[in-house]
């Protein structure tokens, strides 16, 4: 579902589509964690569990002409933007059929045919890339909007603050989506950010709002308005989505128990579950139908990925250059 459809589609269809999207991300991540445990995915992942509403709803507010950049915790964004789950999983498994032909992995998944300009493993780095891309598309006369996702930790990267300035200065059609899940790895946001996140964005002269990042429909409403505003030429906007990371910072944490969140805090955080919130808006039978649709898609994805060839080690640096003299 896209914003194009939003006006025409019955609200119920929107509700169902959002549920399908959050459910798909949820189950994809749960299965990916299993593949990390079984060794099919090497190196681990940063699970997106708990934050599904943000990727699903922000991407639902976009048209096919728009572009996004993602992060180290990026599976949700890539899936929500429409990437094929089989090719996504194949990428995590380092297969030749992966989105990046097995050259990128979990933190770098990209699908340029869908406007996914890549997930970026350097915290805060993609915001300026998205700003440049959005600016360039506008120069070319297109009405593309760019969305750049990042975490609360990125708010302390100077380059991200520089990007906010450039975007506001040059009125670039870019939407900054800060997923504040309370922590940068183990560092609580309260110990890391002086002042407030949205006040920083407002200081550059762009509107900035804090919203409930656990409710897909809340996020959809806010991001639809923000995208429309950017598209109309009014410049960048900033959304701080309050959320909670349900699982580990990275799957390495499943073995190394790090002491930074109390069990009580985690339980309270998990109580506001975006999949449950959206699921409750569907009749039981319809929800079950979506669930089995998602499982079937993920079964097929797993079969595809597991059955895919590994890249040929004879040419490990293929694609290093566009042209090599």
């Amino acid at each position, binding site marked *: 579902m896209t914003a194009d459809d939003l006006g025409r589609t019955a609200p119920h269809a929107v509700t169902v589509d959002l549920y399908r999207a959050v459910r798909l991300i949820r189950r994809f991540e749960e299965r990916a964690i299993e593949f990390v445990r079984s060794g099919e995915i090497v190196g681990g992942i940063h699970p997106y569990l708990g934050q599904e509403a943000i990727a699903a709803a922000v991407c639902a507010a976009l048209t096919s002409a728009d572009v996004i950049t993602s992060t180290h915790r990026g599976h949700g964004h890539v899936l929500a933007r429409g990437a094929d789950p089989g090719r996504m999983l194949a990428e995590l498994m380092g297969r030749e059929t992966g989105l*990046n032909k097995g050259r990128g992995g979990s933190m770098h998944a990209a699908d*340029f045919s869908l406007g996914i300009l*890549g997930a970026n493993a350097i915290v805060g780095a993609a915001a300026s890339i998205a700003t*440049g891309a959005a600016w360039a*598309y506008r120069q070319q006369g297109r009405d593309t909007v760019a969305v750049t996702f990042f975490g609360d930790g990125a708010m302390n990267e100077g380059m991200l603050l*520089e990007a906010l300035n450039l975007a506001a200065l040059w009125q670039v059609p870019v939407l900054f989506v800060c997923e504040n899940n309370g922590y940068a790895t183990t560092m609580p946001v309260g110990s890391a950010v002086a002042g407030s996140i949205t006040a920083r964005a407002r200081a550059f002269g762009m509107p900035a709002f804090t919203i409930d990042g656990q409710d897909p429909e809340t996020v959809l409403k806010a991001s639809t308005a923000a995208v429309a505003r950017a598209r109309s030429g009014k410049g960048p906007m900033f959304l701080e989505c309050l959320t909670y990371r349900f699982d580990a910072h990275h799957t390495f944490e499943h073995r190394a128990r790090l002491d930074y969140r109390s069990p009580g805090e985690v339980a309270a955080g998990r109580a506001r579950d975006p999949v449950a919130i959206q699921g409750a808006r569907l009749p039981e039978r319809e929800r079950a139908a979506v669930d089995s649709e998602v499982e079937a898609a993920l079964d097929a994805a797993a079969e595809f990925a597991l059955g895919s060839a590994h890249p040929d080690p004879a040419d490990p640096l293929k*694609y*290093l250059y*566009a042209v090599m003299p």
Partner: protein
Amino acid sequence: MPKLSYLKALNRALGDAMELDPSVFLLGEDIRVAASNLTAGLSSRFGPERVIDTPLSEQAFTNFATGAALAGMRPVIEFQIPSLLFLVFEQIANQAHKFSLMTGGQCKVPVTYVVPGSGSRTGWAGQHSDHPYTLFAHVGVKTVVPATPSDAYGLLVSAIRDDDPVVVFAPSAALGVRDDVDFSTLAPVPLGVGRVARSGRDVTVVALGHLLQDALVVADELAGVGISVEVFDPRTVYPFDVDGLAASVAKTRRLVVIDDSNRTSGFAAEVLALAAERFTLDAPPRRVTRPDGAVLPFALALDRAVQPGRDQLVAAINAVLEDQ
């Protein structure tokens, strides 16, 4: 024939590239008024949308260029001082350079980074006098260091047309070099192709950027005492023209490299390693470089003492000719 200065040649290359391709645009600090003269006249010719003065946000505008390149543009960034490349090393080496491989060839990042005034600027001291081309060669970013006005024009044009990121180092000491140039002969110079700047028999001297002039002067001097020096200008540091140098060394069987990098792991070290692996020489090769870990001191005599110079080059040439 009209005289063309190195700096004017770069300026001409930018203008021609912008004329030919509307996706080329310039970004940098104080480039509208052309504080460094690199972009002189371009703002009035192409307008503020294509000659963009940026705030002092090197990291963001370097990634901004990457984003614009992903969206189909060909940005050219001017960096006012060479050490700004340290500030944006991540954005070039870790972002722009890695996108092609990491995305499995889904995209290209045709950004050109130009430093008009790399190396010692005489009197600008430690933080303005680096010449960090070796760093970019090491990480595999295409890197050129033109020596002459014609090559400055031709390599910059090729860098802009290239579909990968390219760093163009214009040495401060070369900016004023002027040559007689028939403007109709100005043409792109392919990346990765060196040039024999002076033909000789006894020893090959590898020199690039402003050091080419020094090497040519030394070659002239030594010709007077019966030593025939061949001067090879690689022009591109990475990818390096191995075949070009191999052909020269096959003839002279002796090799000296003069290089404005620090010694350890510098460009000269790489050329010497190549010689050890690939060439048959009659004497151990030598290099003339900045000292290990050099920081250019301010006082003029100290600044000069740290830079590779003609006397050292003469001594190195004599040494390889004496060695057997």
